[in-house]
């Protein structure tokens, strides 16, 4: 006796959250069944393995049919074939677009192209995430990227509107899109200690302050591309380190203000010029695409690592950066106060986030 056909169709589509999770994680039906068996569900419900197999198959088939709709979530809301309560629809979408930290760290900042897709095999082996799940996550990134890439208006709003994601997840996707578009390097060994959350935090600050959207909210690509003019202008900051008097004055202002307040004052005093040069040179280099990509590598090399090697506590870093940015206002010979604030305001936030072990 073999089962040729075995289906269950409810007027309200049944969604089993556990099975959905297994499906999203890319397990085959048989793997999913054995995982469910291990979860002790048979003992709880008194069901047999055959029942579980049939149930799992059925859910997988439903998810497979739903997948087409999940690619364009508003369709899921308007379609008539599956009657699903709104709360469940939201759950289906949110979970479908959720991603693994390990996976996103591998892909973040890479071009979302066929080439990268071919590397998914390696990523799968490296992260232990099934290839199927890697593909889904990659395709999600790519799909969101394609849709919002050339849209007007706020990136987060666009993502939310077209993919009906929660605010949190939409922000994450905005970061992914932003990174993919600007191709920031995140894979270097010295950046491994950083989490996706660190990058997403920086991305948000950069979107808010460094993109076209920060000055004009009616441009296409406004949140995706950095403001080229702004990057050009950043060259002007170079005088802060090139002009020796200005640099000395800046140093003395900072040192005076922080004396007695920093545990690592002497180290700061000794390193001031190096750190300042580092930070200003990063700004000055941003006209080149190559250097934009290396932004995070540079920040870590030029600032995070020197401070860390001197064991600066986070609070000292904060005090230093605050004073460092603020003191520029007292430099009479320096005219680019607004530019400095736009640059340093964001950078200060990023550096504080990046400064950890």
């Amino acid at each position, binding site marked *: 006796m073999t089962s040729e056909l075995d*289906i269950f169709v409810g007027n309200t589509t049944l969604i089993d959250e556990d099975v959905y999770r297994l499906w999203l994680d890319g397990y085959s039906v048989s793997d999913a069944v054995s995982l469910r068996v291990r979860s002790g569900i048979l003992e709880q419900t*008194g069901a047999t393995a055959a029942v579980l197999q049939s149930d799992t198959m059925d859910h997988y088939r439903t998810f497979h049919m739903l997948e087409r709709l999940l690619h364009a979530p508003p369709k899921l809301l308007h379609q008539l074939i599956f009657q699903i309560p709104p709360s469940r629809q939201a759950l289906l979408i949110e979970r479908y677009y959720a991603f693994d930290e390990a996976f996103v760290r591998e892909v973040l900042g890479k071009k979302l192209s066929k080439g990268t897709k071919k590397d998914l095999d390696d990523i799968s082996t490296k992260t232990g995430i099934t290839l199927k799940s890697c593909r889904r996550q990659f395709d999600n990134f790519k799909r969101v990227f394609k849709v919002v890439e050339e849209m007007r208006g706020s990136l987060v709003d666009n993502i939310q509107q077209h993919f009906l994601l929660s605010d949190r997840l939409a922000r994450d996707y905005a970061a992914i899109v932003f990174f993919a578009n600007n191709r920031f390097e995140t894979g270097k060994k010295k950046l491994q200690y950083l989490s996706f959350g660190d990058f997403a935090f920086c991305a948000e600050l950069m979107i808010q302050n460094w993109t076209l959207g920060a000055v004009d909210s009616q441009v296409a690509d406004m949140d995706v591309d950095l403001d080229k003019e702004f990057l050009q202008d950043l060259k002007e900051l170079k005088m802060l380190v090139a002009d020796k008097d200005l640099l000395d004055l800046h140093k003395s202002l900072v040192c005076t203000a922080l004396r007695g307040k920093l545990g690592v004052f002497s180290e700061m005093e000794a390193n001031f010029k190096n750190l300042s040069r580092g930070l200003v040179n990063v700004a000055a280099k941003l006209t080149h695409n190559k250097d934009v990509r290396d932004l995070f590598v540079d920040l870590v090399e030029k600032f995070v690592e020197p401070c860390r090697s001197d064991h600066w506590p986070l609070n000292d870093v904060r005090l230093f950066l605050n004073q460092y940015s603020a003191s520029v206002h007292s430099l009479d010979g320096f005219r680019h106060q607004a530019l400095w604030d736009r640059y340093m305001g964001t950078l200060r936030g990023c550096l504080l986030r990046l400064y950890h072990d």
Partner: protein
Amino acid sequence: MPGKLKVKIVAGRHLPVMDRASDLTDAFVEVKFGNTTFKTDVYLKSLNPQWNSEWFKFEVDDEDLQDEPLQITVLDHDTYSANDAIGKVYIDIDPLLYSEAATVISGWFPIYDTIHGIRGEINVVVKVDLFNDLNRFRQSSCGVKFFCTTSIPKCYRAVIIHGFVEELVVNEDPEYQWIDRIRTPRASNEARQRLISLMSGELQRKIGLKVLEMRGNAVVGYLQCFDLEGESGLVVRAIGTACTLDKLSSPAAFLPACNSPSKEMKESPLVHPPSHGCRSTHNSPIHTATGSRLTQNFSVSVPTLIYTGMGSGSAGKEGGPFKALLRQQTQSALEQREFPFFTLTAFPPGFLVHVGGVVSARSVKLLDRIHNPDEPETRDAWWAEIRQEIKSHAKALGCHAVVGYSESTSICEEVCILSASGTAAVLNPRFLQDGTVEGCLEQRLEENLPVGCGFCHIPYDELNMPFPAHLTYCYNCRKQKVPDVLFTTVDLPTDATVIGKGCLIQARLCRLKKKAQAEANATAISNLLPFMEYEVHTQLMNKLKLKGMNALFGLRIQITVGENMLMGLASATGVYLAALPTPGGIQIAGKTPNDGSYEQHISHMQKKINDTIAKNKELYEINPPEISEEIIGSPIPEPRQRSRLLRSQSESSDEVTELDLSHGKKDAFVLEIDDTDAMEDVHSLLTDVPPPSGFYSCNTEIMPGINNWTSEIQMFTSVRVIRLSSLNLTNQALNKNFNDLCENLLKSLYFKLRSMIPCCLCHVNFTVSLPEDELIQVTVTAVAITFDKNQALQTTKTHVEKSLQRASTDNEELLQFPLELCSDSLPSHPFPPAKATSVDYSSFADRCSSWIELIKLKAQTIRRGSIKTTVTVEKASPMGEGNFRNRSAPPCANSTVGVVKMTPLSFIPGAKITKYLGIINMFFIRETTSLREEGGVSGFLHAFIAEVFAMVRAHVAALGGNAVVSYIMKQCVFMENPNKNQAQCLINVSGDAVVFVRESELEVVSTQQPTANCQPSCTGGEVTT
């Protein structure tokens, strides 16, 4: 031109890409009705076209309006080649033809293609302007309402239940016409869909005409079926119960009808002009009676004694004058009808007087080509023959009517088994005649009996029983005789007293049969049928005993014929009726008493069986109160099995054999294990696993013993097909496979729905088909309803008190409204007949005991006050929680697609149905030539059923409804050819589209529209004239 149909095509969305080059579509729409076609403009390059067309107007006869569906075709415009069809929408405009139903059809419909399934949606608005038609000889029957619901629809009141209507139309099946060889599968499927739609429209119109002839205005329990006879043609047939319905003014108003007798008096003769001689004799004394005393009231019913002389007189001599009287009244009412059948399964209180038992008839026929579609006489004659048989079986049981009546067929190649079954019953004549008692159905009209047991009392003559049976005095009233077991095809009457809970009981059986041709095949099948019936019956009986129960409701026996086997599947809901005696256990006896180990085995089995019975009693909370024997004075006799199933089968109608299913003199409780077969039987008895805790199941509308439903419902369809290994198939192996298939299916359902616990699967409907040699297909449709567990515990704890309460409250109803009762002058009265008739025939002792009963009841009535308050408190809590649950759920307004509930039941728990919008009757074909790509057979059928649900929901929503009740999937014919990568499936579904309002919202609604309440009482009259 009695009608103008207006159609507007608004927009489309989610259309498929038809032009690969641009990834877009140039869509336009053709709107066709009858022979007229209109087209919209082409909307270029869009997947979401906005046509916003003008109103397309069709001027048509109302006959066509009833027969023809509106056909909307969406196409892709192509300048150089033929336009490609995207898909179609068929809209049945029938709901727009009754005054009370929908006024407009407007909404998004899925665009359906028989090869690709649903391909986007289209927004359509449809309206109908009907002109008054003065032609009396018209062919249309606009205005007759149709209901699939097999009880009086919730917001209506039955004025008269006229009786059985049936009709049948035949045609050639387009799939088998010569032209099918040269046309595409799509064209062939569409021809078939269209033909069936036309045929069912025609059928409905013809049935409507019959109803109008009977002076009714509605068909209740309408069941339409298709017989795909292959080469020999296509038959569409329907049965139903004609009624005159009156819309209730407001859902809350149940009693007011009785408060205005004067109005009723004046109106009734006008609305229903006397058509039968008997009517006036009922009417005149009743309506002129001004006094309102019990005695006087009884006296007015005396004139009805006139009938004693008129009836056949053969039946009911011993039943007492009253019974005879009642029977004759009923008889005279029913004799005017060819077939006194009712497709209803639930009735107004007092309608069902006695139940005789299940009657069924089957007949094996050889199909031949239908030569002339306009003369469907052969098929008509076949059914007439079977109905005649049913009628005579009912007569043999001392009954004049058959309720819960249904018909079905099973076809394999050229052999067809026609089956009909129902429950023989004695009905209260008041409901069957014109004008006798208007309204007042709510009033209890028992004879001399306390509540809840009257229907169990035997209708046949005790001394002249149609079959050997064992009778005892009713355990409830102690006055009338009852059988030891009762089988019926109807739902449990609402006033029946049940102990504990019910459960789904199934008998499953397979029999191998040699492959044969034509007559030889038909003969082989006819020979097997009696054995199958016998075994199915034995299985049911044994399983019922094993559950410790004594009655079956909703019994449905399906016999399916295949190439090389016959399958029997019987489903029913077992209950313990308080009025019937406690069932005995099951004894096992061996045939070889000398063998010691065998003896041991037997006793082991016996112990297992006894344990199971005990366990089941606990599980279903069956603990009948101990009754001391002295009260009745008659010893409870040893129960013996007795069959209430009369059946016969005939081949080509020339031979009618009757089978006595009562096992002769053998005690049915003894199972003799004399061979392996019997052993298997016993084993199979014990393999049925009860549902996991928190789950109950039944195939009736609601589960006896559960009455605290919460609002969550989940309707589902599950289909399974298994392939049997063809090697050495034996009956046992086959039985085991089939049994496992059904059991596993149930287990899967329990598992899938575990999140709803505590819940009950209601209206579990199994259908078996044998699509190919080694394939068995089982289709199940049911609804899971949640209930409040705490409440359930409370009620069970106090179930004895409750039954007392029930008796007292019922009694209270009688006492509380004596004046209304009398002023309405019922022909028979609750109390007096007992006293009056007892003088004639009863012994003094009997009379005393009945007095004692009466005094007891009165005593309970006095106590009722305190009890009643506790009842209301109990009832209040689950409702409150239900509401809370509703509100905590996210509001539907968030979703762009309105939720449409579907249920096979006639009601929606926690809600009131405020409007019936019309019948939904849809037929779809889906075919694929890329089976593997669509996920194999499971993927294909899963998607198709989901699409069917979607189309039903879309139609209901477009009618302005939010639910389908009495939903049924009548057919699901699935054929596959995996080698060719092809599959085809036909599905036919029906139900009633309704608007429901949550009980929590109801109060607001009713206060908002006080004006709407005044009109409905007159609408019924308008329609009938």
